[in-house]
């Protein structure tokens, strides 16, 4: 199994009553921020990612959120490029994994293609390219894209990005959302087949596209793995069966918040209030209408969600969730290395997960505790996870060749029967 360190860049000094007064995205007043607080939040975040890169994780992963206090990374490619050079200079064989460059909001899709190509070159071919449709609040409110346009924009931009990476000759692009008289990217990615992942929250259509076209699919479980795991992963593998692809665990990525300490008791003392901070003031403080604006979710998805909002697990109670609520729902896996390893192994075995993105920093967790969490996980949990699936015949086709993967090319939209225009 591949195990990546995943981190967000939360602002760590929000007031105690934040969740009762404010929303965590779009309208959050910047007056709450201090210069020192912002500098240390971002600086520590970078140092923590580098610790992960030096500690033996297979990859370092981040994602993209604009106008957000719980993850202050408007463009993950800036962070990734810094990591690409630093790790290359130190000779660290670690994947650089920006997980969610949002193509549903991108008005300059060629920029996204160029940035990823540049990161692949800077890292010597260690890019794992994560792309995502994009969250409503970000694509629509922060970036002004009409909600109903987000999916078709994503579809079109994805085709442009993939083609721009591999095309050997300049070409013209006459899209619905962007037009270029000549696309001729410099540089192109070093990797012949850039491992490409789509990140989502369980939309069957997105999963099906990944299986049809040979992309990896990341499920970011924020809402409690114990509540949502079975329904999402059962759906995922059913989609794989329908698409006629093997149940290869390496095509699935799963994100889980984890907190490790010497003992279960100590883990609760050290991490409890910081986990509450993370979910109450972060995800829990995003209003539901900003997660899915009218038009952004397909009509059939809207009908399904109205009838059964189960995909959202603990979300509806997150703003007041206690540490125990979070643990009971599986939002956070916490405890001694044994406790954590067993729970993660059980989950990954049961659902056939071959890529774990361990979120080891969260909320107000101070630098020294994030560092401790990363180190303990790397030393005592990671080695036990890594051997999962090694006894099977599955090949990892969604990982850079330089890092031991055997990446294959993906199917074009036309061949997969997708309708992009």
């Amino acid at each position: 199994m591949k195990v990546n360190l995943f981190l967000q860049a939360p602002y760590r000094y929000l007031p105690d009553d934040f969740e009762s007064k404010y929303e965590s995205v779009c309208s959050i007043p910047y007056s709450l921020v201090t210069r020192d607080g912002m500098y240390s939040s971002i600086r520590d975040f970078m140092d923590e990612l580098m610790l992960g890169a030096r500690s033996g994780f297979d990859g370092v992963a981040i994602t993209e959120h604009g106008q957000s206090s719980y993850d202050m990374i408007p463009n993950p490619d800036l962070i990734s490029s810094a990591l690409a050079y630093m790790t290359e200079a130190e000779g660290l064989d670690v994947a650089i994994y920006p997980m969610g460059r949002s193509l549903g909001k991108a008005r300059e899709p060629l920029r996204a293609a160029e940035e990823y190509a540049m990161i692949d070159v800077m890292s010597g071919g260690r890019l794992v390219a994560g792309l995502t449709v994009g969250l409503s609040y970000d694509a629509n409110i922060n970036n002004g894209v009409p909600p109903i346009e987000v999916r078709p924009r994503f579809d079109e931009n994805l085709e442009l990005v993939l083609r721009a990476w591999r095309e050997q000759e300049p070409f013209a692009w006459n899209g619905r959302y962007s037009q270029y008289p000549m696309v001729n990217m410099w540089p192109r990615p070093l990797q012949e087949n850039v491992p490409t992942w789509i990140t989502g929250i369980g939309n069957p259509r997105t999963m099906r596209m990944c299986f049809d076209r040979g992309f990896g699919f990341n499920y970011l479980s924020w809402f409690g793995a114990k509540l949502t795991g079975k329904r999402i992963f059962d759906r995922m593998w059913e989609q794989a069966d329908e698409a006629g692809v093997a149940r290869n665990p390496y095509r699935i990525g799963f994100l889980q918040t984890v907190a490790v300490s010497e003992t279960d008791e100590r883990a609760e003392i050290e991490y409890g209030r910081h986990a509450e901070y993370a979910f109450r003031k972060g995800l829990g403080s995003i209003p539901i209408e900003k997660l899915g604006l009218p038009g952004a979710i397909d009509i059939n998805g809207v009908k399904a969600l109205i009838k059964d909002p189960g995909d959202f697990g603990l979300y509806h109670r997150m703003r007041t969730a206690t540490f125990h609520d979070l643990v009971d729902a599986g939002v956070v896996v916490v405890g001694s290395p044994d406790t954590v390893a067993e729970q993660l192994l059980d989950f990954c075995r049961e659902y056939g997960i071959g890529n774990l993105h361990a979120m080891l920093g969260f909320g107000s967790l101070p630098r020294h505790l994030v560092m401790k969490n990363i180190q303990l996980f790397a030393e005592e949990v990671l080695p036990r996870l890594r051997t999962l699936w090694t006894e099977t015949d599955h090949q990892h086709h969604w990982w850079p060749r330089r890092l031991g993967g055997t990446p294959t090319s993906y199917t074009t939209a036309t061949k997969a029967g997708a309708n992009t225009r």
Partner: protein
Amino acid sequence: MSTPTITEQTIDVWGGRLSITVKIAGAGTPLLYLHPAAGLAWDPFLSHLASRYTVYAPEFPGTSEGNPYAIHTIDTLSDMVLAYEELIRALGLDRPVVVGQSFGGMLAAELAAAFPALPDKLILLDPIGLWSEAAPTANWIATPPEQLPALLFHDPSAPAAQAMLAPSDDIEQQQAAAAAMVWAFGCTGKFAWPIPDRGLRHRLHRITAPTLIVWGRDDRLVSAIYAEQFHNLITDSTVTIIENCGHIPQVEKLDETRETVDKFLL
């Protein structure tokens, strides 16, 4: 006012690629009614109009039951205006009265500006389509559903508002209506998001039809200050402001709205 018999026609426009469903009722000269962002609801105001006119009420592409993806056929508001003009020709309507409410008001104004000879008369009920930083149009698409009544009505507790807001007793119908409204906001939002200003200000001078602008004094979605702006930009226009009234005068103040509309149409 009793509800008249409503029939339905589906018309193919846009080279056969777009089907638009039209609800039709009444008798007499034609009147085109363009509904607001939430979709078409046949209300007593429409029944009143149908007592003197043949009312044609098209459902905006995407909002017709069973045809949700029609919205993806057309990308720009100017093309949508052309498609509506095709629809009017296909229906054989000769110089109809054109009435539009809110989002439908914007569409009606765009249609009248693009085709000045098309409407006999134009009635705009609290239309969107202009933008002033001093009185920004509220973002109804991003407003939580529980806050919508206060945005739409001067007095959400009054019987007329309650009748419109009252959910069905049947849970499945309730869910279907909620999903339909969400999707209708999405479809119309394609041409109103993020800011419902597509440059209408620069085109309103082209309208030549006599125009009635009706506005609720207490409209919290799109301020009544816009009534004056529409009036200044449309040459042959008059304004009626209705007191103690929010964004939907034909529901919240049906009698006053009916009276002012009748007076204008006579």
